[in-house]
């Protein structure tokens, strides 16, 4: 599974990884938008599992999670959505650890893989807690991309890169997710050069990527870029075909000439 993810990310440079909150505003819209971003050229899809206390997320994604929760969206619904999308696009879940813990670590890994999920990002499980989680994911063939932050010292970043699977998620700036601040390109370039020495995995840049300018700034050194809050903002308040149209417009802006047409 993780090799399908990796090779998907290598087809385009930089590869586009959209992040969608599953169930915001409803699962049907998430599914329609997922197909739309795939058609526009997305290489893989990050599916957020709604959680009420998302420590790594800013207001946009937190509010999207809240809307999805109000619709009653649960882990099992997200897995069912993943299995409907599995043939269309490689899927990586983004889920806080307490949801995995409550589901049962082993059962989660098993059901995720059964649903065709390629990997799971668990932002609050870092190196310190990895030994309790990663071996179980690995046993079931679930990739575990890990995050590297601007505050991560070089040696620790190397260790993270060596232990990650699927891709390495390079956080572009301090703080939480959100479309407000631009990535710190100089610091990123240096960090990515260091990571290349530790791993051959694709390096995906995320947090704050929201315009074509941001994409062009990271394109020379990143293998992939992740867009979450900007996408969610683009279609918040809409659903169905309306949401699809707005997402296509943003994808067109972000991808420029590599846009494939919706």
């Amino acid at each position, binding site marked *: 599974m993780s090799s399908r993810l990796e090779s998907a990310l290598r087809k385009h440079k930089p590869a586009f990884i959209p992040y969608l909150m599953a169930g915001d505003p409803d699962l049907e819209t998430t599914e329609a938008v997922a197909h739309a971003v795939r058609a526009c050229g997305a290489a893989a899809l990050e599916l957020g599992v709604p*959680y*009420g*206390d*998302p*420590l*790594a*997320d*800013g*207001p946009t994604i*937190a*509010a999207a999670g*809240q809307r999805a*929760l109000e619709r009653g969206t*649960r*882990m099992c619904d997200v897995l069912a959505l993943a299995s409907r999308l599995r043939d269309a696009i490689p899927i990586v879940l983004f889920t806080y*650890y*307490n*949801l*995995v*813990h*409550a*589901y049962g670590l082993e059962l989660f890994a098993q059901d995720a893989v059964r649903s065709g999920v390629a990997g799971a990002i668990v*932002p*609050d*499980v*870092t*190196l*310190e*807690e990895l030994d309790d989680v990663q071996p179980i994911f690995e046993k079931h063939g679930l990739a575990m991309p*890990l*995050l*590297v*932050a*601007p*505050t*991560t*010292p070089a040696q*620790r970043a190397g260790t*993270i890169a060596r232990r990650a699977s699927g891709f390495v998620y390079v*956080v572009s700036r*301090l*703080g*939480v997710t959100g479309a407000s601040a631009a990535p710190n390109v100089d610091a990123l370039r240096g960090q990515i050069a260091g990571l290349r020495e530790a791993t051959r995995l694709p390096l995906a840049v995320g947090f704050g990527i929201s315009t074509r300018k941001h994409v062009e700034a990271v394109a020379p050194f990143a293998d992939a870029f992740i867009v979450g809050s900007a996408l969610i903002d683009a279609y918040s308040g809409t659903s169905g075909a309306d949401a699809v149209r707005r997402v296509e417009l943003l994808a067109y802006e972000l991808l420029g000439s590599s846009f494939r047409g919706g």
Partner: protein
Amino acid sequence: MRASAQPDRRGYFGAFGGRFVPEVLAFALDELESAVDAAFADDAFWSDFHGLLCSYVGRPSPVYRARRFERCAPVVVKREDLNHTGSHKINNTLGQALLARRMGKERLIAETGAGQHGVATATVGAKFGFPVDVYMGARDVERQEPNVALMRMLGARVHSVTSGTQTLKDATNEAFRVWAAEVERTFYVIGSVVGAHPYPYMVREFQRVIGDEARRQCLEEHGRLPSDVVACVGGGSNAIGIFTAFLGDDVRLWGVEAAGKGTQSGETAASLSAGSIGVLHGSRSYLLQTADGQVCETHSVSAGLDYPGVGPEHAYLKESGRATYVSVRDDEALTAFHDFAAAEGIVPALESAHALAFARTLSRERNSSDLVLVNLSGRGDKDLAYVRGLSSGA
């Protein structure tokens, strides 16, 4: 070095604790851990700390026998209500401010529920010249207006948090997010023995002065160790603070949680009594959550106990059987609040009233040769308007 056997190197108390935070904060926690290790090994640090506890906070706080409140066994209360700012919270904020100064940090941030920890942080911010930003749920900003005014008077900026349930849990989320954005210059002053390692350990070491003093005072003034030690448990800092000195003694330890309207009512804050194991705010412990792992909204008459999680060391003390956790309902706490004020001329914090309610029950069951020590964690001035509103509404 004053560290005891727990936690282990990864910050675990048995199976509880650890460090579950986004990667951006990992560096800050490493940095804090190194600073804590160095400071705790430095006599000059402790001498600054204990000097200020004496001259600024007013320690040692006395233990006082509540003769008209007790039933059979004598009840003595540890008077944390007499501390500067009116609760035990100042012990912790003073320690963390000293650390922040040592680390060269430029500002303090804090979460607060009732506002006691916010006030205690604003106070040390003023004293040490740190700008302070306090995050407080919008509902609590409304409920605890006097403390909001006090924090502002002390120069702190109070930010009203409108996400989620708009209470302490969400204020804590917001403080973590703000910390992540400005982690290099900002020191996050957590208000209880919760959060990621090293917070639960560090806060315990700042609060253990309560039990260290009380143990000595019981021996000196009552000629014996207490038979029972009782404290209310929100996040658990005043309880850990008074328990730690007695861990090696043959003394029963009782943590009293807020049952709210009852542990089975769905309107409760009793994480250890009614919750299950999960991860919240950086550590693995008991927590009130749905079967899916979504954190529940809580209820307690006392804002300081209105929190879905609990410090990991309490989870460990529960599992190991070293401490016992019980719960007291809103109405029982309110009765103790009024009774204690009328019997002793001391208005307790509503949080502390939970401990007093259970202590009175114990006093009835124990012999006159026993001794029940209660942590009177704070004074009730902050609760007056609220309690009066309740009785006029009834």
